[in-house]
């Protein structure tokens, strides 16, 4: 069976936090630098917040991969909702020892253990999707950060409630707050084109005009996750036409019809 080039193109836009897919934009590079510099300061916690799809997980993932060989760093990409499991994973991260399934970590014991390491070690934990943690667990995270042995970089979705959590629980401990925002049309243009060029799809990159970017930005509001989803759908349709009705996708520009079809498919525009 014939394989379309659009199959590879659409896969570029599969949403993932793989550090290989990290696209350096002015804003993301700046935020990443701020985060890196913050890690060297005598902080307790760093808060990374923004709306879903603004690249928080991506930055956290990149930070982990960049620093994992030079620092003691642990990345919890999925939230651990069980307190028992969370404390166990923290202890394992600090002690580098496996705890048997039938045993649990005593929080007071963990605190004392951390205090005993003060001035000797500095262990970093990257916690994604912290809005899912319970308040009790967040309080324990706060107490652990007070030991100054464990540093936490946490991400929160920017909603009213989550901002409240940030204010109430962490305002005295959070040293650095980094807010991630949606991309502007110009940034989105660079983002899409860099992604295509990274995989050497120069021709397809040139097919995307400013007008297309404007349309994409209007639909996705500059959200990276939404943009990935949109472009995946566009090239999915292209793939179908390429395989079954190639006469419909000729030309040096992206088909407006296909763009609109993808927007209808996702629900950006109503049919």
């Amino acid at each position, binding site marked *: 069976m014939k394989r379309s080039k659009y199959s590879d193109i659409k896969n570029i836009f599969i949403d993932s936090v793989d550090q290989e897919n990290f696209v350096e934009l002015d804003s993301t590079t700046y935020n990443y630098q701020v985060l890196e510099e913050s890690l060297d300061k005598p902080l307790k916690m760093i808060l990374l917040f923004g709306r879903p799809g603004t690249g928080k997980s991506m930055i956290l993932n990149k930070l982990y991969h960049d620093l994992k060989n030079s620092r003691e760093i642990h990345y919890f990409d999925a939230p651990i909702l069980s307190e028992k499991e969370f404390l166990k994973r923290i202890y394992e991260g600090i002690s580098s020892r496996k705890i048997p399934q039938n045993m649990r970590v005593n929080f007071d014991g963990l605190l004392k253990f951390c205090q005993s390491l003060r001035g000797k070690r500095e262990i970093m934990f990257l916690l994604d999707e912290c809005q899912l943690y319970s308040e009790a667990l967040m309080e324990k995270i706060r107490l652990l950060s007070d030991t100054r042995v464990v540093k936490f970089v946490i991400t929160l979705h920017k909603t009213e409630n989550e901002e409240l959590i940030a204010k109430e629980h962490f305002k005295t401990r959070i040293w650095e707050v980094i807010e991630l925002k949606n991309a502007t049309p110009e940034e989105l243009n660079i983002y899409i084109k860099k992604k295509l060029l990274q995989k050497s799809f120069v021709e397809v990159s040139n097919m995307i005009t400013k007008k297309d970017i404007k349309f994409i930005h209007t639909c996705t509001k500059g959200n990276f996750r939404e943009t990935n989803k949109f472009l995946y759908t566009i090239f*999915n349709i292209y*793939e*179908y036409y390429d395989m079954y009705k190639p006469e419909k996708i000729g030309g040096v520009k992206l088909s407006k019809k296909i763009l609109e079809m993808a927007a209808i498919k996702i629900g950006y525009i109503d*049919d």
Partner: protein
Amino acid sequence: MINTKELEKRWYRYKAKSLILVFSILVVLLILIYGGYYILYKLDLNISFGEQSKQTAVMDAKVDKESNETVTEEKRESDEVMLAPTIPIVDLESEKINDKKERRRVAEKKRVKSKEKLVKVKASTYLTAQELAVVNGSSLNSRETKKINLHGTSNNYMNIMKKKFEQNKNPREALLIAKAYYKAGNYENSEKWALKANNLDKKLDESWLIFASSQEKLGKQQEALKILIAYYRTSKSPKAKALIDKIKAKSI
């Protein structure tokens, strides 16, 4: 793989909706523009009609009484106008009679006019009774003064007029002297005295006319015309215009 058939159907539906939307917006816009224009036009008409009706209402009230009378007159007039071309036969006998009547009427008018002119000439005499008495050496009460011939340019008359002019410098007197010289055919003196009168009073219509006429008589038509034209531009005097035409006609 994506189901493009279903998606295409949805896209066509979307496009149709978009077109309908664009079309509806255009129609609404057109209606608004047309409606606005119509309302404005109507409003404008109403205002002008309103003003007109107010004016005409007042006019009508005034004219209403007259209208009954004028309508009948107009009807008569219009009847004549309408009937005139419908008569193809001309009664030659009655036309001859009408012609005779008309000629008589015109002759009568001319006679009346010439009489009026004579009366006017008499009124333009400037000499007082006392002056006349001096001229003829008779008393004021004498009945014979009426028979004295005033048209003569006797030296006595000229001397008295000149003396009088020397005393009061009245432009009217200078003009009278100019006229007397002109009538006597002494155009050089008439030109000179007309100029004197004109120097004293530029608005004195006859001073210009006598001056120009004298010049014309002395063979200076072009100069006379220039002066008269210049005077006519400022005064719009019908006499000056008539004289210009006369001199022009003569020179042609």
